[in-house]
């Protein structure tokens, strides 16, 4: 029992390490020169973010840039307008620390926010002094509205029932309501959920100024897709609207990375979504049948065939037969023979040809290893096969999985290897991670199965095996 737990713990630890390695591989591949496919998370560090930026940092940086003026102030004004209500609790109290000219510049930069919040028009805030006066009074009157508890209460009530006033109240706090609005989207299973999503979507689309619409006749599936769109948005931009304080800042050093974002998508369920919007788990389910079929037929037939092959070679007394057998075994283990078969096979023979190649390659590869194992000089090939199961179990999986990737690509079979290769080329991180982690799991299981065989045979007398 203890050994089993230790082994399972080892597998889990290795899979975590492998996932880190594969993610690094994907990020490294995406960084190559001339790459056209850029992940939306490419701006984040891969594994560690030493300086995660929350809304407080972004807002105060923008204020400083606007106060100093010049070219950086243009980008800062845009940034402040995008941050919106979420930045007000940090920007408005900081106005007092600025000189009068800078105060007016910052107040003017907030005009688009006031217009979006429907609390003033751009004409009313055309002058710097007017804008400054407006925001000073606004904060005196409305600071109490910018509290998480009150915004959560407003959101819950809007989610329950549609009243225009509740919608306006949420629009008045602008992006400050984003975290609670995203939370309130919840699961979508019934028409009532669809109505809730429609109400919340209306506010979300307004305050983010994103063209995301929920039509009146939207189905449950439409609403589910809409929720996914908003969750993707939140995964990408959530930290920009959230204050990172204390433990949250510490967690953000990991969460606000490409790997952290991928892990969050995995934990959300379905192993994340691919670039085409499909669940990565569905992609794995589709590819698993072909790949596992190739793997188990190749292993189940190829391995015994390799043992028989070695046995035949050993028992043959004629030197030419042994030489021909050795040459054939070595040549057939060279995977590029797949190319010959592709030339000869028609399109309908894809799967059959692929199985034949994997089986023959496995048999040839196993037979060569058994023929050269010193163990096989003294005992039977079957005993030798069991005896060398641990080293072969370690080297066989990457060999056979590479062969499977090759045949899946050549015969265009919808397996995991082909999916992983194509998604790596396309920069589809979720699809790549899902497909390659499945392959890694298969490989690890094969290795540990081989490890388990060895102690069993070690207890018996190998020489007595046929």
């Amino acid at each position: 029992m203890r050994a089993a737990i230790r082994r399972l713990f080892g597998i889990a630890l290795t899979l975590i390490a492998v996932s880190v390695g594969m993610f690094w591989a994907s990020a490294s591949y995406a960084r190559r020169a001339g790459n056209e496919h850029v992940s939306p998370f490419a701006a984040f560090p891969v594994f560690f973010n030493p300086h995660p930026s929350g809304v407080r940092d972004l807002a105060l940086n923008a204020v400083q840039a606007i106060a100093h003026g010049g070219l950086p102030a243009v980008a800062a004004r845009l940034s402040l307008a995008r941050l919106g209500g979420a930045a007000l609790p940090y920007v408005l109290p900081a106005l007092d620390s600025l000189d009068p000219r800078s105060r007016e510049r910052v107040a003017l930069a907030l005009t688009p926010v006031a217009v979006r919040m429907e609390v003033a028009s751009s004409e009313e805030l055309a002058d710097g002094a007017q804008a400054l006066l407006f925001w000073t009074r606004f904060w005196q009157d409305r600071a109490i509205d910018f509290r998480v508890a009150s915004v959560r209460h407003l959101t819950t009530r809007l989610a329950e029932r549609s009243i225009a006033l509740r919608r306006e109240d949420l629009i008045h706090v602008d992006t400050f309501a984003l975290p609670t609005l995203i939370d309130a989207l919840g699961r979508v299973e019934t028409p009532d959920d669809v109505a809730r999503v429609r109400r919340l979507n209306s506010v979300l689309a307004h305050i983010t100024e994103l063209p995301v619409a929920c039509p009146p006749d939207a189905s449950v599936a439409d609403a589910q897709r809409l929720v996914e769109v908003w969750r993707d948005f939140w995964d990408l931009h959530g930290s920009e609207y959230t204050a990172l304080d204390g433990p949250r800042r510490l967690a953000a050093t990991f969460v606000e990375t490409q790997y952290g974002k991928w892990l969050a998508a995995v934990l959300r369920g379905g192993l994340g979504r691919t670039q085409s919007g499909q669940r990565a788990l569905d992609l794995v389910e589709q590819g698993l049948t072909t790949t596992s079929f190739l793997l188990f037929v190749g292993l189940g037939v190829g391995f015994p065939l390799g043992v028989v092959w070695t046995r035949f070679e050993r028992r043959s007394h004629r030197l030419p037969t042994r030489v021909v057998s050795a040459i054939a075994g070595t040549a057939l283990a060279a995977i590029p023979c797949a190319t010959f078969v592709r030339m000869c096979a028609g399109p309908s023979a894809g799967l059959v040809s692929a199985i034949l190649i994997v089986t023959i390659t496995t048999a040839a590869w196993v037979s060569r290893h058994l023929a050269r194992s010193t163990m096989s000089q003294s005992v039977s090939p079957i005993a030798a096969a069991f005896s060398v199961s641990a080293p072969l179990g370690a080297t066989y999986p990457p060999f056979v999985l590479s062969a499977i990737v090759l045949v899946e690509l050549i015969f265009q079979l919808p397996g995991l290897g082909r999916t992983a290769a194509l998604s790596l080329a396309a920069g589809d991180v979720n699809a790549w991670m899902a497909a390659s982690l499945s392959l890694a799991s298969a490989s690890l299981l094969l290795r540990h199965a081989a490890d388990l065989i060895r102690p069993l045979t070690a207890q018996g007398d190998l020489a007595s095996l046929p």
Partner: protein
Amino acid sequence: MNEPLSAKRRLALAAAGAALLVVLATVLAPLSPQLRAYSRGLVFAVLAGLSIMAVAFLVALPLGALAASGPRVIDWVLRFACDMVGSLPTVFVAAVFWAGTSSSTSFVCGLGVLRGLEQAWLLRCEIVRLEAEDPDAVPRGLGRTPLVAFLRRRMSAALGPLFVSASFSVAWLTALDAAVTQAGLRPPNAFATWGVLLGAPDPSPFAALLAAGSVAWLTVALHALFRPPGVA
């Protein structure tokens, strides 16, 4: 007359054969574009294959021996490294290496290290198995038994699986190359290799046949060359 050739003679014959193949391909290259592509691929396959084998041996021999007979921590580290490396089809690791390295040399060295880890594990398992069969053997005795005795008795007998693995180096490299090309993961400015002939969407049958035949021939030659003492 029927005595097997010595290791030195086999090595010399193999080197001469490889050199002859390269010279022949270079001479024939101007005759047609297909032969030129084959010739360039051959040069790469021979040089890269030899480099991979050399790097792999450099990694595998000390690491495998230390993991089998040295401190237990090295065994644990090697096992973990092999678990990591072996969990993924090598073709993807090769694609990432190739995209990330600036030169063919570092790509080939990276593949050699990868191959070395795999061979180190084969060597480690074989040494452990031989030690278990030998009643006089001292477990993890490296450092307590004389090094020369260890190398002569244990290492020479345990090299079989490592040599088999090494003999597939050229085939392994070409297969990876073909798969990387087939998947569209090949860097655009990469050296022209047999992977292009074998993995391109519409390969030229003549050049592909020639390349695949050469891979098989080279593998058989390496397999015959790497024959550990005492094995038929």
